């Protein structure tokens, strides 16, 4: 036995917790606390291998930065540890309200768990169920390693997008020294936890905790034994004043309590940053993330009061309420804004804004989804077509985010509703919703629409939806169907449908043979030279990124003399596919993926997507797409004349295609309702002569959550660690299109202003001492895209993608508190770091360079 039967042993217990900031050198000031106490352990019952220990705590103190404080409030009642076959089993403690103290008692008990026979691979202790391994060095020296403890990752919220998540690494080793009789002389636990942002691994915290139990002496008092026949009866005799607890700890809620602050107070303090003019700034994003934890514990009535009281910041408030994701916030928003048939257009706009924010949710309350889905059945909403469309998209997105079980009736209902919508008058709307739902059970229906849809835009929408699915959703039959679309085996397809099918095939890691087929395609008769250009640029881009693919690409190319020549590789399309690094360490690792698909000289479908990278994973933070259709008749550079007049042109595909243009936006993978700039020739001509399309149009102004993670960790000492990371992006996107038939030119300009903020808060400790780290990262990435098209003589298209100077600012405050003691003490260590990135214009490709030189020759 670690404690000799009938004996009294004196121990000293010491727990030191150190909090360090990642990315900093060791010269930085330390923040740590040490807790020390004396333990008097009496063995008050024993029989066979079972034992009951009585433990008194006395002489407790906490120390930080050389300031020592006695703890006078720990009661002098003992607690008890029951040992079954020599191993701690239960803690019998007084029914106190101090969760910290109870956890500490569990930690002490856990240190007594030691198996010399190394007979188990799992142990249950203060940190939950852990995998353990023993290194028995001698009869008096033993080392135990713990891994994968269940209480080392207690998640409250987490973002399933890996790149928007947090990374945790934990490790613990316990070293034991025993006497020759097998009694405990020394037990020491060393525990490390590393917590960082997945997207920025040098930001976060490193927490070290050591718990040492040192034998001091044999006690001098006689230990009175409980005269009972069994351990159970001995425990039973204590229950008048005591309760039995498991070794496994519970979270100490005190560590994460929000101190005497209300949403109302914080909102008033933030009003200057929450104005509409601040959308797109990091200051607004920062104010937003500060409000969210308070908003999540706010009741519906309080929300309603705030909505009434702060009318001037309503657009920003509804964004906030969407990020809250509670049913209270939802009810307050709909109660305040939705008046069924009587809803005004301003109220409808705000509701759509709320839904767009909600669509980025990571853990929506189920009742929200049920309410929104039920709303679709009501007659009153059918009067508000745009709102209804946004509700459909949001229901689909939230259903996916909820992670419902395959058999969940709500998932089945939503799926069924959306599939039925495919046969309605507006199938595109439901296709987009299936893109948001991403349910593998709907793949067949989408493929059916991709291949049999009468209108080109149906195929395109269906393939765009399929492209959003996780890659694991597709099987070999699906792959064949994508190939059938790309190669037009069964029928003719819109060029965008074909490029989307290609993207999916390429993301499914094509085989050597399949890659060879794509290269052979480049030498085929296909008159769609823009698609060939797309294929070639896509393959080259992948080759740039992936060395293995590059080697395969080159070897297949060299084998093909009919492809590897200036006739085939000299494609004449204007289509562009490229990726560029927007920022990298020490800023975030962010890239831009630009696809500009040209058809008959016109930008038919262009997209700019922002991807945040973390290791091998990436998350799409924002994607902007511009589409046009039917404009070829105005510009008139068909692809029929490919230099061989003896060969007739391909028939016109979908000659009656409506003249239309618009913008599609997806935020963190959630596709929003598209904006239509104009539809129909009449409306286009109205814009052309009236010049109204030339004004800058706000396309998207909103603030949404990005990082949303909250975790607890229980340390071996019983201390609780709370770790919360919230991020937000405030985006102000506007665009304009200028079109002049007289001068035969056109300009497109897109401006995106983004303010991003990440706020991290970590607290670790117990009732009498606490370490806190608060960090913030603010960043304002901006981007502008200008496209100048000149069709006065031939087609010249110059695209300029520019990134202005950017500043990333990082602040850190680490604090140590001695609290609930005489003369509380606090120390704060503050640091700031900033990193500036100079502005640049991205090089696209040589053809674009030359076209820009031509268009801007006079500048």
């Amino acid at each position, binding site marked *: 036995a670690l404690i000799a039967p009938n004996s009294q042993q004196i121990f000293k217990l010491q727990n030191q917790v150190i909090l360090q900031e990642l990315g*900093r050198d060791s010269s930085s*000031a330390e923040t740590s606390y040490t807790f020390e106490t004396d333990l008097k352990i009496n063995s008050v019952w024993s029989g066979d291998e079972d034992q009951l220990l009585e433990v008194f705590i006395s002489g407790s103190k906490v120390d930080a930065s050389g300031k020592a404080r006695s703890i006078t409030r720990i009661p002098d009642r003992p607690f008890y540890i029951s040992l079954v076959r020599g191993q701690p089993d239960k803690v019998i403690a007084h029914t106190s309200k101090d969760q910290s103290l109870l956890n500490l008692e569990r930690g002490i008990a856990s240190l007594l768990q030691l198996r010399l026979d190394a007979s188990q691979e799992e142990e249950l202790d203060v940190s939950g169920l852990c995998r353990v391994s023993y290194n028995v060095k001698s009869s008096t020296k033993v080392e135990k390693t713990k891994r994968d403890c269940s209480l080392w990752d207690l998640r409250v919220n987490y973002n399933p997008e890996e790149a928007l998540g947090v990374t945790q690494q934990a490790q613990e080793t316990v070293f034991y020294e025993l006497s020759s009789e097998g009694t405990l002389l020394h037990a020491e636990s060393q525990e490390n936890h590393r917590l960082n942002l997945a997207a920025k691994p040098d930001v976060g915290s490193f927490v070290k905790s050591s718990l040492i139990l040192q034998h001091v002496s044999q006690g001098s008092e006689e230990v009175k034994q409980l005269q009972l026949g069994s351990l159970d009866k001995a425990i039973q005799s204590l229950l008048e004043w005591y309760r039995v607890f498991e070794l496994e700890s519970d979270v100490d809620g005190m560590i994460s309590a929000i101190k005497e602050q209300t949403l109302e107070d914080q909102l008033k303090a933030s009003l200057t940053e929450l104005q509409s003019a601040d959308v797109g700034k990091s200051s607004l994003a920062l104010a937003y993330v500060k409000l969210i934890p308070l908003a999540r514990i706010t009741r519906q009535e309080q929300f309603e009061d705030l909505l009434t009281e702060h009318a001037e910041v309503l657009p920003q408030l509804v964004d906030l309420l969407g990020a809250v994701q509670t049913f209270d916030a939802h009810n307050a928003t709909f109660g305040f804004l939705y008046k069924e048939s009587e809803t005004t257009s301003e109220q409808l706009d705000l509701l759509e804004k709320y839904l767009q924010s909600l669509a980025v949710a990571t853990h929506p309350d189920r009742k929200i989804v049920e309410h929104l889905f039920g709303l679709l059945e009501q007659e009153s909403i059918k009067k508000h077509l745009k709102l209804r469309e946004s509700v459909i998209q949001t229901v689909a997105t939230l259903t996916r985010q909820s992670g419902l079980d395959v058999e969940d009736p709500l998932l089945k209902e939503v799926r069924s509703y959306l599939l039925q919508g495919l046969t309605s008058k507006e199938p595109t709307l439901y296709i987009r919703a299936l893109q948001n739902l991403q349910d593998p059970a709907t793949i067949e229906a989408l493929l059916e629409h991709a291949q049999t849809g009468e209108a080109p835009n149906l195929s395109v929408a269906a393939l765009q939806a399929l492209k959003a699915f996780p890659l694991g959703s597709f099987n070999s039959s699906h792959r064949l169907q994508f190939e*059938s679309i790309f190669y037009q085996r069964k029928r003719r397809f819109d060029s965008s449908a074909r490029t989307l099918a290609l993207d999916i095939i390429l993301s499914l890691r094509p085989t050597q043979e399949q890659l060879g087929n794509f290269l052979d395609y480049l030498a085929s008769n296909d008159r769609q030279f823009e698609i060939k250009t797309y294929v070639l640029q896509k393959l080259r881009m992948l080759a740039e990124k992936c060395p293995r693919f590059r080697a395969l690409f080159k070897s297949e190319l060299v084998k093909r003399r009919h492809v590897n020549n200036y006739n085939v590789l000299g494609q004449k399309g204007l289509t562009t596919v490229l990726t560029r690094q927007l920022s990298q360490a020490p800023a975030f690792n962010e890239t831009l993926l630009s696809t500009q698909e040209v058809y008959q000289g016109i930008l038919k479908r262009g997209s700019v997507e922002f991807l945040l990278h973390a290791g091998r994973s990436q998350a799409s933070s924002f994607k902007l797409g511009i589409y046009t259709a039917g404009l070829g008749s105005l510009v008139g550079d068909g692809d029929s004349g490919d230099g061989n007049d003896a060969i007739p042109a391909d028939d016109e595909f979908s000659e009656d295609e409506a003249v239309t243009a618009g913008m599609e936006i997806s935020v963190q993978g959630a596709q929003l309702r598209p904006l239509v700039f104009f539809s129909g020739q009449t409306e286009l001509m109205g814009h052309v002569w009236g010049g109204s399309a030339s004004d800058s149009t706000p396309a998207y102004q909103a603030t949404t959550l990005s990082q949303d993670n909250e975790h607890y960790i229980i340390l071996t000492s019983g201390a609780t660690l709370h770790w919360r990371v919230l991020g937000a992006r405030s985006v102000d996107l506007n665009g304009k299109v200028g079109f002049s038939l007289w001068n035969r030119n056109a300009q497109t300009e897109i401006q995106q202003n983004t303010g991003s903020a990440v706020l991290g808060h970590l607290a670790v400790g117990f009732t009498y001492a606490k370490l806190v780290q608060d960090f913030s990262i603010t960043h304002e990435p901006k981007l502008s895209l200008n496209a100048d098209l000149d069709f006065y003589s031939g087609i010249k298209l110059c695209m300029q993608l520019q990134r202005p100077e950017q500043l990333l600012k990082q602040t850190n405050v680490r604090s140590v508190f001695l609290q609930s003691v005489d003369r509380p003490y606090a120390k704060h260590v503050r640091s700031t770091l900033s*990193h500036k990135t100079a502005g640049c214009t*991205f090089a696209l490709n040589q053809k674009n360079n030359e076209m820009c030189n031509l268009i801007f020759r006079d500048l």
Partner: protein
Amino acid sequence: AEAEVKVEEGVLVATVDNFKQLIADNEFVLVEFYAPWCGHCKALAPEYAKAAQQLAEKESPIKLAKVDATVEGELAEQYAVRGYPTLKFFRSGSPVEYSGGRQAADIIAWVTKKTGPPAKDLTSVADAEQFLKDNEIAIIGFFKDLESEEAKTFTKVANALDSFVFGVSSNADVIAKYEAKDNGVVLFKPFDDKKSVFEGELNEENLKKFAQVQSLPLIVDFNHESASKIFGGSIKSHLLFFVSREGGHIEKYVDPLKEIAKKYRDDILFVTISSDEEDHTRIFEFFGMNKEEVPTIRLIKLEEDMAKYKPESDDLSAETIEAFLKKFLDGKLKQHLLSQELPEDWDKNPVKVLVSSNFESVALDKSKSVLVEFYAPWCGHCKQLAPIYDQLAEKYKDNEDIVIAKMDSTANELESIKISSFPTIKYFRKEDNKVIDFNLDRTLDDFVKFLDANGEVADSEPVEETEEEEEAPKKDEL
């Protein structure tokens, strides 16, 4: 029940229902997979029908069929159709890709060759003359003994080269008529010398090359029809003449080079590319050229890196071009990269102007450290930087160790440096030629700091740290 097979203009109409039976009933079927909207299919249709009818007139066992892939999608999928038109030749139900031309005569020649002996036996002078009349380009082997080793080698090559028509004769009259020697091979053609006689050791490799080289004109005009022959052969080095046919460049510059073309034909293919064709603009672009530069030449090696070469002068005389080719074959030519003309005053100003041709001698000069700005003339950030950069160059103009330079990246290409954004600023350090990216603020002060530190400047900002304490006051003793 066997589905009915319709016939349109002599062509069998194949469907999902009748296809299996059709290729079972006929030993030889050429099948065209087409789409009604496809322009190339429309161009092929009359020639295909013509070929079908001519074969029928000869009571040939070879049938021509067509499949509308947009209706018979299953067939298109089953045979992995990847473009239109796709022609596949079914021999006893087993398909091979059609690799011939698109004219009726090409089709007939190809399928006839595929179904008959690889080389037609010419038993009389009349046979031979008809053979040459039927085929524009024909290769005839003259062997007294058709069982000889040489004759068998010839037959193997005839089997391997689908796009050529081969004849063979052991008839003494035929051999005499064409003044051939025993075991001789002659290629007959309607251009250049009209006849090429094979020389050298008669083996498969040499014979294949002979066929490929001699079947092309000395100087071949690039177009859709000739492209497959230009790239299908084994010669990977092409001398390209960029000319305007309408401008009379063929007669003036190209024709005088036929002697050189003949001399180098085993190593270099001479190709003309006309700037009068709109479609050829893309090939000009591929070579970084525009149509105003004609007449001019470029050399390209069609290998992994597609290396391109440009002559130093504009002189297109036979002597100059021959010297250029000789240098290339000796491996002494430097790869051509997109480059501006080097301005005469490139080093007259504080900021030196670099182009592809002088980049290496300036930037990689080990006796100097060189800061290079890679820019685009229309880039806003580059314009913003220009006055600061000028100031910087002014400051260091008398410094013998440091050079401040710039290069227009839209007009100059470098082998080892790829620019992905403008401006990109790189420091080429003297002695070790280490390349360091400039990532500081683009201010005069930061540039000076960077240069004075020889490029070794940490780009992270210093971290400021402050510390503060709060402590309740000690209670006064009562």
